């Protein structure tokens, strides 16, 4: 079956800061694609990530695991992850698992970029 229900778009803002857009469904099948994309950014020096969930249709526990793993990896490198514009449809699993408490939430990408620069990301 060749239906890939996810698209990951990334935009480098500065040497250690990137914005990642998760479009579609992030689940047990597609989460590895998200993980690979983020791992590539981290290997390339990114330690601050704004993950935009505006167009995320679905988030399951595997996707939550991938988000938490990303957070752990960048925090090990003194970085951080902000979640941008978390829609109600994907907020539920984050709330149930209390994982929403460990991320900074912002309304826009610009807000996240400003917050991450305050936390130590280099400016564009």
């Amino acid at each position, binding site marked *: 079956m060749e239906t890939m229900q996810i698209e990951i778009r990334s935009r480098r803002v500065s040497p250690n800061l990137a914005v990642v857009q998760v479009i579609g469904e992030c689940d047990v099948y597609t989460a590895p694609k998200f993980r690979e994309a983020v791992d590539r950014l981290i290997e390339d020096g990114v330690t601050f990530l704004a993950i935009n969930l505006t167009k995320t249709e679905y988030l399951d526990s595997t996707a939550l695991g991938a988000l*938490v793993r990303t957070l752990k990896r960048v925090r090990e490198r003194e970085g951080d992850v902000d979640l941008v514009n978390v829609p109600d449809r994907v907020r539920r699993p984050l709330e149930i698992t209390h994982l929403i408490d460990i991320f900074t939430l912002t309304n826009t990408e610009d807000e996240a970029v400003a917050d991450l620069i305050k936390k130590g990301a280099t400016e564009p």
Partner: protein
Amino acid sequence: MTSPVPPTIALRIPCSPEYVSVARLTISAVASRMNFGIDDIDDLKLAVGEACANAIEHAAEGDIDIICTMEPDQLVLSVKDCGIGFDPSAPRVEPAEEPPVGGLGLIIIQALMDDVQIHSDPQRGTEVRMVKRFQK
């Protein structure tokens, strides 16, 4: 007079991640047919997706059987694999400084469904039986 047998819809998918979305779509259609609200449909899709993901994690091969029983006041879902089983009392989430990476699926299912029963047997696999009632 005996009550009529509730309509049942059965789906069998391969125990592989790419088919979980098929199960979610099916549950969405069944719940919509029963006139569940959008929030409840989202809950059902997530719960079934988690049960299937759990089956894939513990079974690795074979099929997953999903049975939807459309009772007058509730939807009963059974997700069954033929894997090695697991201890359903084991996973717990702690809002800790060191966040967990796995083991969240059953916590999500239990939070979303009105009733959840898990039967796990090393010889016969695992069945997650979930009930979603109509909100009054």
